[in-house]
């Protein structure tokens, strides 16, 4: 990954690489990366975790790791006790952090300052094996460590064309695979990463306006929140050239809403996952994937098939396996956990297999119900999930955030009316108006008992 930075730094070193409160050029990014690489190699570090989230800190550390073949792992932005558990679970011997509240953790710790201040003395050859560890967000249980290799990850961006004028918003955490994808795309394009902190829709909207963001990629949940922020503050609509959605099934009404708001922007979708990597983007503005992806040749980098209603992928950019488990066939077929239907020329996403609600033995997909509820007048945001119940094991439950000024009781009744024609088991039996919706990693959490 350091080779992407080096390529731009050598030809356009003063180009902006990262914009936060400050600007980091490609030349400065390379200098930091090489200094950190030399410092880590000099200390004999072969694996380390990163507990900071500022892009100007994390990027050079990842680049340094990729240069010397050390395995880096960016931890989620959690309290010390959670990080201590993760460090133990993934047997991390070294932590790089500038956080004062982590001083008591029993691990060898280095500050980014001491690594970036080291004299740089590394060659330009990269290590033969260049591992990288990504933790899953844990929306379906405890986080797992997904083992990648930089050479395979970089294969996913080898067709990215130079685009020095593009300014990409970082809406994901850099501990997330999607954040890593944005990072690689930006570096491969020689573009600029605009990285607000924290990475919430409110800060994202402000960064779009202040730093002239041209491209933004985020989850549908993030975009829904951002549209709500935009409506609420009444400010200028950012002049985006491209909007990308991924990470969750994408409702058609949201695509229409985005097109109506960001009238100059091209709307595309990406389908990617921590395990199977990036599969490319779809730019036809329709929800789902074109069915033609099922006809890709045997030697394609990414191939698809549908098996018993679930999408399977074979990817040459995907993971090597899970941490602590036997390696998988890196080029073999893997179930994605995404349930799909083939509808004409389209693969339509129905939701995650793990999101299915079992109502007295009847399986209910939450996503179509959530789309209905989200379209109800007075509903700003909604989530549909399984609520434990003594009578039927689980019932379909709705949590909705009402739009400002909406009468909660009227909104609840409108939600029930909108779902009245659903089959009995699928009809929401619990409807609550809440102040906010539970999310993890920028995605709505739909699993039971949250």
């Amino acid at each position, binding site marked *: 990954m350091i080779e992407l930075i080096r390529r731009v730094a050598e030809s356009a070193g003063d180009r902006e690489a990262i914009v936060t409160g400050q600007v980091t050029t490609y030349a400065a990014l390379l200098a930091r990366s090489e200094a950190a690489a030399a410092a880590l190699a000099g200390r004999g570090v072969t694996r380390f975790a990163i507990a900071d989230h500022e892009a100007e800190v994390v990027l050079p550390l990842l680049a340094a790791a990729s240069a010397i073949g050390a395995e880096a792992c960016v931890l989620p932005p959690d309290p010390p006790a959670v990080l201590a558990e993760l460090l133990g679970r993934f047997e991390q011997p070294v932590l790089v952090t500038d956080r004062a509240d982590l001083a008591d953790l029993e691990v060898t710790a280095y500050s980014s300052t001491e690594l970036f201040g080291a004299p740089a003395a590394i060659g330009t050859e990269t290590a033969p094996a260049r591992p990288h560890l990504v933790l899953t967000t844990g929306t379906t249980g405890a986080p797992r460590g997904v083992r990648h290799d930089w050479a395979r990850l970089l294969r996913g961006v080898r067709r990215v064309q130079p685009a020095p004028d593009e300014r990409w918003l970082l809406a994901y955490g850099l501990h997330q695979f999607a954040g890593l994808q944005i990072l690689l795309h930006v570096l491969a394009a020689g573009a600029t990463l605009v990285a607000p902190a924290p990475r919430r829709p409110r800060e994202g909207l402000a960064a779009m306006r202040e730093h002239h963001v041209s491209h933004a990629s985020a989850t549908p949940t993030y975009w829904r929140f951002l549209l709500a922020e935009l409506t609420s503050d009444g400010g200028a609509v950012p002049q985006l050239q491209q909007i990308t959605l991924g990470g969750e099934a994408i409702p058609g009404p949201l695509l229409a809403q985005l097109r109506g708001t960001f009238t100059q922007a091209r709307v595309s979708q990406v389908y990617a996952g921590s395990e199977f990597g990036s599969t490319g983007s779809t730019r036809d503005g329709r929800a789902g994937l074109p069915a033609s992806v099922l006809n890709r040749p045997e030697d394609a980098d990414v191939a698809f098939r549908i098996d018993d209603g679930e999408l399977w992928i074979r990817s040459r950019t995907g993971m090597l396996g899970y941490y602590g488990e036997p390696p998988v066939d890196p080029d073999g077929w893997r179930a994605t956990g995404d349930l799909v239907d083939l509808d004409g020329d389209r693969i339509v996403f129905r939701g995650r297999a793990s999101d299915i609600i079992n*109502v*007295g033995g009847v399986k209910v997909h939450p996503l179509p119900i959530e789309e209905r509820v989200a379209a109800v007048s007075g509903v700003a945001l909604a989530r549909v999930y399984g*609520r434990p*119940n*003594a*009578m*039927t094991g689980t*019932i379909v*439950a709705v949590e909705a955030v009402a739009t400002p000024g909406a009468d909660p009781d009227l909104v609840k009744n409108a939600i*029930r009316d909108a779902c009245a024609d659903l089959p*009995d*088991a699928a*009809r929401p*039996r*619990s409807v*609550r108006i809440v102040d906010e919706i539970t999310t993890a990693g920028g995605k709505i959490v739909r699993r039971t008992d949250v």
Partner: protein
Amino acid sequence: MTAAAIEKTVVDFLTRTKKLPTDFHVEMNLYADGVGLDSLETAELSALLEDEHGEDPYSSGTMPQTLAEILAFYAAGAQA
């Protein structure tokens, strides 16, 4: 919580779901030949009682047959 508030929760629910018999009374059976709640409607009532009154008899392992038994569950809890 008062018995009146709990009764209002049940009656409002039965009214909304069009299950309130004209001759409804606290001793009427909530299921079968009485009010006629099915399992999903009962599940909905249990969730509603939990939301509005903090706990519900169904989740506590009992199966109240009438509104009177629901009221008795809360009354017993209040005395405990």
